[in-house]
């Protein structure tokens, strides 16, 4: 793993004091997050800590109530999925959203087909899909014209990630990409996540699996009951500290201040 020096350069995506409520229920409290190009940021937190809400806010599905989003240093307003897509933010959701009856190329270009007049430009789409998969060193697909229904879980995840990369995305957010996978397939996906970062993408990687987090992440951001407990280089913490951050909001001198943490508990 490369020596993390995340503080150099501007983050491609930065959240400052983001609040989000659903009715009377405030889910996110002043959340700060920095996401750097070429780095994998693991977003961890217990169930209900606000991980999903946070990524949906970034994706524009749940626009934020307060705080600021900066993209490449400039304040931006993300009020819908189109805004985030235009900025180059792609989210790969847990249920992948692939059509089983279409092949790999057709899925990767779904909704954004290349056309030659009226006709679909199959040749250019197949080439672009192939190039993207090759760039990510995907070697597990037999054919790019294979139906998605015939793919394994890991291969599907690969296709979903490649689909996100195809659109010159700068930030790729992966929602528990290894949750349903076996050992070998998890290996493939983690390799792919690493290559995503190595090709210059900023990657946000949601996971409950500490082995995966420590294997692939450069930074770790821990959410605790809607507050950002820590957003730090992973080299500064060990596994038990991360688990403490997830379960208690602080570990030693990292995390939410004791008074605040106590207040949150109530």
């Amino acid at each position, binding site marked *: 793993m490369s020596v993390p020096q995340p503080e150099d350069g501007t983050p491609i995506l930065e959240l400052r004091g983001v609040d989000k409520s659903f009715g009377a229920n405030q889910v996110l409290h002043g959340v700060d997050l920095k996401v750097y190009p070429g780095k994998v940021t693991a977003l961890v937190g217990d169930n209900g800590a606000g991980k999903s809400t946070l990524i949906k806010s970034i994706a524009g599905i749940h626009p934020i109530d307060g705080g600021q989003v900066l993209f490449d240093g400039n304040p931006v307003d993300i009020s819908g999925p189109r805004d985030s897509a235009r900025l180059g933010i792609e989210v790969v959701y847990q249920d992948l959203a692939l059509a089983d009856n279409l092949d790999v190329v057709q899925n990767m270009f779904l909704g954004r087909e290349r056309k030659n007049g009226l006709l679909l430009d199959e040749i250019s789409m197949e080439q672009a899909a192939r190039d993207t998969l090759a760039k990510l060193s995907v070697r*597990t697909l037999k054919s790019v014209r294979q139906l998605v229904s015939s793919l394994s879980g890991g291969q599907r995840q690969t296709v979903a990630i490649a689909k996100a990369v195809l659109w010159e995305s700068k930030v790729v957010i992966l929602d528990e990409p290894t949750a349903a996978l076996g050992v070998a397939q998890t290996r*493939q996906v983690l390799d792919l996540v690493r290559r995503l970062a190595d090709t210059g993408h900023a990657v946000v990687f949601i996971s409950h699996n500490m082995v995966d987090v420590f294997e692939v992440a450069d930074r770790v951001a821990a959410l605790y009951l809607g507050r950002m407990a820590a957003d730090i280089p992973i080299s500064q913490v060990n596994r038990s500290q991360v688990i403490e951050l997830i379960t208690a909001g602080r570990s030693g001198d990292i995390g939410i201040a004791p008074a605040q943490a106590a207040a949150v508990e109530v």
Partner: protein
Amino acid sequence: MSSNTISQPTSATEPGGFEADRSADSLGGAVRAYFARVRGGDLGALPAILGIVALGLLFVVLRPETFLTPRNMANLADQAAPIIILAMGLVFILLLGDIDLSAGVVSGVCAAVMAKLLADAGAPWYVAVLAAVVTGAAIGLFTGSLVGLIGIPSFVVTLALFLGWQGVTLRLIGQGGTVPVRDEVISAISDRNVPVTLGWILALVVIALYALLQMNRWRMQKAKGLAHQPLAVVLLRIAVIAVVVVLVTAVLSVDRAPAPGVVLAGIPYAIPLVVVLLLLLTFVLGRTSFGRHIYAVGGNAEAARRAGINVTKIKVSVFVISSTLAAISGIVAAARLGSVAPGSGGGNTLLYAVGAAVIGGTSLFGGRGRVRDAVLGGLVVAIIANGLGLLGTEAYLNFIITGGVLLLAASVDALARRRAAATGH
């Protein structure tokens, strides 16, 4: 399928996966791949082709002197045309995983509109045909809006409309009445034939165009290093199409006049009509983004929605297409029968068309199907109806047999789907 998932992306020296794309050059490999697909539950056109061959042989044995005569073959084509055209519309609906139980009676309403305009208003044929087609499109817009915008299950909407439109036809035609369709141009669809020479020219043009397009695509894919089929498979497909087209043209070019002195030969106009619709709709489904989106909505509507596809718009347009085709089917049926009755489009019309689509290989579960399924399945259904007619089977048996065939086809579809789920195809 799963053996390759364990392989690690190790050395960077090899040019990367996709081995199946690069090694698809041998005929043997293609044949093996085909059988693997069939075993995996993707039967494609196989059941329909087997059905056509088996039923053809059966009726040749049972009625050797009448079934395979040029006259009966022309009759079969006329019989199959309205079924096939209606089934083409249903393929679109079934692709979405929806159903249109009113398609048959919609064809009746549209035919009634045409017949009334011709007989009562004395309108020229093109006005009457246009009115029928527009009626079909409007009905489709209505049905599609109820399904797509309001969100009523298509089964319920079209079941209600199945009853409702029969009432409208009854009102238009009148109890116990029939409206004759005597317009020369419209009757020509089933009465007249393409002149023999022109028929041969058209047949050769179709073969040449098909061969050209297939070869062109194959060359392009090979040149750019994309996934392609072995040359032998492409050539074989062209050969099969050429043989079928030549055989059909040859049989229908024989003089089939019942009495000497008159000449009755050539392809009935219904066949070019079906071929044009087949080409047009295959193009829409296979080569345009609209068609791609129909498959996507049928395969995973949520994925389609997230990909930015307007699912409602796709649903409504599909119902418009289907009802428009139902109108054309109604016109062809009226041309064949020479009249429109209150019961037109009722009875077994819909059952035949749904049966045709499903026998041809279109799935009732959505997402899988092609326009050619309607043609192949429509031929199976028409051969059954035609052959049983030649045998002089009683009507009750006719119903039971056709219903049984539809059930059989639906079982094959459901079992193939289960097998596909089990084998990961």
